[in-house]
């Protein structure tokens, strides 16, 4: 089943390149992937802490390299996110005016690559799948993008290539910092080695910094974030949905999967740096977001800003914060996909996303107005949406770090500032919603058409998933909290 979630999109991409009908094949493949992910969710064994549904094909016994896939709670949530957003993105894609087959093949490759990275237990394939997904992202922006596509494509390519290189160096160093007898590409084996103290303190510090910067660039950690808004504004909506919603989360997943269990000393050493940078994401980028004059740029910056909260959960390095980070990764992926998808639909109709040109659109597009409103309130962390559940766990987790009564230390200060970030995001989100959808409508938009009924399906899917885990976050908590408890207790 895990293999199905990975290869269903990849095989479909190949089939589409060979001439299969693009949209039908892509939709079928993404429905199948989603079904497989749901099956994995339904058959998930909560009593087990290890990877489930493991399949392994040895490639080089000498290097202990093998193609091993499987899911634990953390992976499964990521796979589920990937499959839901894939389905929504492909549903939103609609007809493409040129090279439709290549377009859909690229989307499916991003999806397959991202899911593959999340489900790989082997370090090599963990990295390789991500690279597989990056390349079609560049192509989608460079070939099918909007006005600024060439510059944006180059910028994202340079940034992410550098990020990947630094990450690769970090991974290689990680592999080599384990003594020969323990050396393996298997993440589980590396974790065992780390838990038994095989990675020296110095090595941890070096590797952690490389991973933080490498993954950080991929996630748009301040100050490596400027590629993101530009790329998302230029990207076709489904590509922005998949990258901001799923592929960008690879970096966060990597930190949770590798850095938290294997490099606790590195995390402690660089905690202050990380907190400062993530506050850059939350406060500084938050302010930049307020100043944006276009909806797509605003959304791009807002997704950069929200990464700060997930980093805060990771930085807290306790069960509560990291669990919250996972819930927020999932929630943010869905809500930003919803917002990018709807913004794309708007752009199709109006040809502009500048706030000054828009206004009052909810009057003629009530469904789009409702859906966008739900996305907006999910993004600002309204209770009922999974975003709130994730954020609140992060806040409680981070506030607890290094607490002693009578003094606020760095994590308490960071939590307070991050809470102010919630006000900032409320300001820019509600202001954008008001400028685009509320108020008086100008004459030229009075004949706009609302979303076609077929698009109610992906919107409902995304909103339903957000509400489901907003009302019942405990089902996710039960899936990942034991993993992190094991990770973090092994460190001590």
């Amino acid at each position, binding site marked *: 089943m895990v293999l199905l979630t990975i290869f269903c999109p990849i095989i479909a991409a190949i089939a589409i390149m060979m001439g299969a009908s693009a949209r039908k094949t892509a939709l079928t493949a993404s429905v199948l992937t989603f079904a497989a992910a749901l099956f994995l969710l339904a058959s998930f064994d909560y009593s087990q802490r290890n990877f489930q549904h493991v399949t392994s094909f040895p490639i080089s016994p000498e290097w202990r390299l093998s193609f091993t896939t499987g899911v634990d709670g953390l992976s499964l949530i990521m796979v589920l996110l990937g499959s839901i957003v894939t389905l929504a993105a492909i549903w939103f894609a609609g007809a493409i005016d040129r090279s439709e087959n290549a377009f859909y093949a690229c989307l499916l490759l991003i999806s397959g690559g991202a899911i593959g990275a999340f489900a790989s237990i082997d370090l090599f394939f963990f990295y390789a799948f991500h690279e597989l997904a990056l390349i079609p992202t560049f192509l989608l922006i460079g070939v099918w993008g909007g006005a600024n596509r060439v510059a944006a494509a180059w910028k994202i390519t340079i940034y992410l290539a550098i990020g990947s290189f630094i990450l690769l160096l970090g991974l290689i160093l990680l592999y080599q910092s384990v003594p020969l007898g323990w050396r393996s590409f298997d993440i589980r084996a590396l974790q065992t080695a780390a838990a038994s103290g095989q990675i020296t303190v110095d090595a941890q510090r070096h590797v952690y910094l490389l991973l933080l910067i490498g993954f950080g660039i991929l996630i748009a950690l301040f100050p490596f974030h400027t590629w993101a808004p530009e790329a998302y504004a230029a990207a076709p909506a489904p590509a922005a949905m998949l990258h901001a919603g799923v592929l960008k989360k690879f970096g966060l997943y990597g930190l949770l999967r590798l850095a938290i269990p294997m490099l606790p000393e590195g995390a402690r050493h660089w905690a202050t740096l990380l907190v400062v940078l993530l506050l850059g994401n939350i406060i500084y980028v938050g302010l930049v977001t307020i100043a944006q004059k276009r909806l797509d740029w605003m959304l791009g910056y807002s997704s950069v800003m929200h990464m700060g909260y997930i980093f805060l959960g990771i930085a807290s390095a306790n069960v509560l914060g990291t669990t919250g980070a996972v819930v927020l990764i999932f929630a943010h992926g869905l809500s930003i996909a919803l917002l990018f998808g709807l913004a794309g639909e708007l752009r199709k109709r109006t040809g502009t996303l500048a706030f000054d040109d828009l206004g009052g659109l909810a009057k003629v597009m009530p469904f789009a107005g409702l859906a966008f409103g739900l996305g907006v309130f999910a993004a600002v962390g309204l209770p009922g949406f999974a975003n709130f559940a994730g954020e609140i766990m992060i806040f409680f987790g981070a506030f607890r770090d290094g607490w002693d009564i009578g003094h606020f230390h760095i994590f308490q200060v960071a*939590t307070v500032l991050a809470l102010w970030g919630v006000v900032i995001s409320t300001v820019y989100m509600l202001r954008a919603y008001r400028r685009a959808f509320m108020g008086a409508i100008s004459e030229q938009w009075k004949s706009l058409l609302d979303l076609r009924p077929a698009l109610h399906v992906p919107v409902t899917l995304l909103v339903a998933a957000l509400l489901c885990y907003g009302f019942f*976050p405990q089902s996710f908590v039960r899936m990942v909290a034991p993993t992190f408890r094991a990770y973090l207790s092994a460190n001590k």
Partner: protein
Amino acid sequence: MNSILPWLILLAPLVSAAVITLFTLRWKTLSSAISVAAVFVSFICSCLIFTHRTSAAAEFTWIGIGSVFQVPLGLTLDQLSRMMTVLVSGIGALIHVYSLGYMRDDEGKSRYFAALSLFMFAMLGIVLANNFVMLFIFWELVGFTSYLLIGHWFYRDAAADAANKAFITTRIGDFGFMIGILMIWIATGSVVFAEIAPRMSGLTNHPAFLTISALLICCGAVGKSAQFPLHVWLPDAMEGPTPISALIHAATMVAAGVYMLVRVAFVIQTSPAALLVVAWIGTITAVMAALIATQQDDIKRILAYSTLSQLGYMIMAVGLASNDAAMFHLFTHAFFKALLFLAAGSVIVMLHHEQNIWNMGGLRLKLPITFVTFAAGALALIGCPPFSGFFSKDAILVLAYERNVPIFAVALFTAFLTAFYVIRLLVIVFFGDARTESASESRESSPVMTVPLIVLAILATLGGFAFFTRNFLTLPIEKEVAIIVPALAIAALIVGGGLAIAIYRNRASEPIDLQLLRHKFYFDEFYSWLVYWTQELLARISAFTDRWIIDASAVGGSSRGTWGTGALLRLIQVGNLQAYVFLFGLGIVALIYFAVFH
């Protein structure tokens, strides 16, 4: 069944909101019927639970991570919450019925009733929550529904702006609230009220910590109950439909702040310093809002400022450490203020959405039921004996007299101002001659609107006695104080009311012009200035930095041919994206091969 019944109070409106949003948006009458049915289910369940003292509610886990963080979904069913659910669902039910008339021809009727149901769910959730996180959840949801309902006519710029202003302003208060919750949680290890209360005594060695956390929690109430300095959103919220002003922005939601403070009194009352600050916040709000109200011309805004002022009294009572007095005034205020808004709504609708009091006049003959009920509400508001407001306001004044004389003096002055502006309103709207055509041609509203008025008028008139007979409150009234305080209050009332009659009888326009009060002490102007010079300026500077420094230096740095990026740029000069991507992949494979081979 007994453990599920309390949940039905909450679930009925939630289901109603969900069903309307998902299925019945197109059928307006059906939507409104579902919503009204749901609120009556809530009301009946509330009454059942009120009379059956033993019912306990089932409890679920919302988030639970070992012993670190446990957030249950559980209900508090003590006397306070049982009374409050009856009040909220009861007034809610009346306003649902009234809305059937008021919103009859509105094109967004389904949306309106869905939001109204969602509001009932959220508000009842605040009342019943048994822990801080759950309280916060419903707290935010109430803010959200308030946003929806203020912005019901979202295509009007004023309504859209008012909705945003309300949500953002209350979120600023919630920022402090959340920090307060975090501090209490970290010090006591729990978010559940019943578990925190006994552990508070362990913190008495840290008075500064207690004061700060108590004040931060109060921030939430300051935002939601529109207290100084976060009061600016409430008058603008009057852009919403009038039943919403009555239900949310007068009777229930804004009182949620007071209710919350009473609910967590075990935190607040550990810090005398925090109590004093709270008492003065309430006092300042009371007198400031009353001053502004004397110079307003919009009937709903006058009532909105009177709400601010009365909420100030309640917060004052909380600060004077009397939960009973605060809750007593909350109850009587809910009746008479809902009544006043609904009666005002009746006037507004019958005058074709006219809200300026100078365009009214002489309406006592045209709208007799509205007039009588409005007058009952007005007399209750100014605290005229034997109307309900007299008893509850007296309780607070007695309290202030005993515990803090400066506050008592201000409160008494506020009572004088209240009488002045309410009688002014009454005289201008209902007496004298009709000043416009629509005022002279108006007729009484339909029964679906007047029946709720009559019910509320009875409650507003007799509510004060009902509390004594039920022996709900143990009010701190001593013999000798009990005479001097009401005597002073009645004197203030007579002077204020008499002055208003003397000035405004048979006037056609405003004889007094105080710019400071007309402009509401320039709070809005000051805040716009503040936001412009802080947030907006910082946002612009950040955006500039991001574009011209961070982004430009990254790109510029790479073009100068530094290591790595320079090499990449040369690759780019192959000119073809696909070729580059291929090389990129190849390079990675080579690098891995090299690394592993060593």
